[in-house]
């Protein structure tokens, strides 16, 4: 039954032609900027910067700046390629219909060339400026986001965001690798933290924009399994996420400043996720706890990573 539902959703996607009119004017430069999803990039840049600052080896400011710039450009490239591939989906969702491709302000080929060009540029530049391990991880993160998440998973399975979440978890590893040339336990724990944070974050959003995803035929968990199961999964993922957030403290990788901050911030996250679990609303108007959790989840990641840097720099 669930399989048939997924097939129906996928079929709906592939049968829908591009709805956007072809662009008749050259795209405005601000449309190229919009293609890189600047708002999403801010979190990627911040976690990458924290990975770099938390590393035990100092990096020259110019090389550090270049590494962060390349993380931002890599994230922008992956976003552009995502928009290139998902132009048909974006046209069907209110939230994304005004993006450059579905709105007809840019043609798909331009977006593809921009995304591919920016991908190669960011990987080569970080490789030449810092080291090729960091470049390899950056290349892997772009490929993971575009191929594994966008092409393979997003239209096929409600687990899309679970596995695909790994793509957004790479920046602190890249930042750390740029400074040290390797990846030890702390950056791996930071990777796990973002990996486990992604499902509650996106499922909270997808609960109150469920109709958008359903209209576009994206098999997000609330569309396929309903709000009740999604709320249970949010609460379930919050527990290992909180454990991963606090873990660097007992493992001796971070001090008490970080440990206490991470524990307090995770406790609030857990309380908000329990409020979501207790909510029975099926319409967006009644989904205040979900909206609150979504907003808090962004603040949470900023605060946890900020606390880590603060802790590491004070300990120094």
């Amino acid at each position, binding site marked *: 039954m669930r399989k048939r539902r997924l097939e129906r959703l996928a079929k709906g996607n592939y049968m829908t032609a591009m709805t956007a009119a072809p662009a*008749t*004017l*050259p*795209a*405005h*430069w601000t449309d190229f900027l919009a293609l890189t999803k600047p708002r999403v990039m801010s979190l990627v840049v911040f976690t990458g910067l924290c990975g770099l600052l938390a590393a035990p080896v100092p990096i*020259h400011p*110019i*090389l550090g700046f*270049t590494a962060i*710039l390349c993380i931002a450009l890599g994230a922008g490239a992956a976003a552009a390629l995502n928009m290139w591939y998902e132009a048909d989906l974006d046209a069907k969702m209110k939230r994304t219909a005004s993006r450059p491709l579905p709105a007809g302000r840019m043609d798909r080929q331009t977006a593809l060339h921009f995304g591919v060009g920016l991908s190669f540029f960011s990987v080569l530049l970080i490789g*030449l*400026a810092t080291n090729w391990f960091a470049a390899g991880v950056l290349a892997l993160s772009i490929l993971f986001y575009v191929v594994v998440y966008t092409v393979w998973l997003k239209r096929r399975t409600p687990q899309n965001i679970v596995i695909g979440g790994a793509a957004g978890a790479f920046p602190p590893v890249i930042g750390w690798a740029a400074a040290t040339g390797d990846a030890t336990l702390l950056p791996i724990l930071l990777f796990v933290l973002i990996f486990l944070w992604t499902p509650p974050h996106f499922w909270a959003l997808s609960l109150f924009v469920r109709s958008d995803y359903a209209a576009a035929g994206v098999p997000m968990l609330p569309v396929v399994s309903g709000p009740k199961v999604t709320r249970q999964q949010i609460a379930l993922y919050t527990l290992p996420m909180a454990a991963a957030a606090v873990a660097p403290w007992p493992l001796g990788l971070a001090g008490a400043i970080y440990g206490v901050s991470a524990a307090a911030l995770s406790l609030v996250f857990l309380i908000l996720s329990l409020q979501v679990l207790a909510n029975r609303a099926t319409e967006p108007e009644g989904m205040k706890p979900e909206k609150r959790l979504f907003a808090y989840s962004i603040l949470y990641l900023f605060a946890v990573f900020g606390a880590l840097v603060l802790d590491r720099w004070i300990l120094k």
Partner: protein
Amino acid sequence: MTQDDPQHLVEVRRRQKGRAIIMAVLLAAFAALVYGITIVRMTGK
């Protein structure tokens, strides 16, 4: 507004100019960055 419309051509030129200016600024910044990276790498810091 059709493609032969003078107003269309003016808009095309305006956008091309805007993109050219942005590209020039980005290339200049990139040249400065590569210069900085080269100096840092050469001094071995």
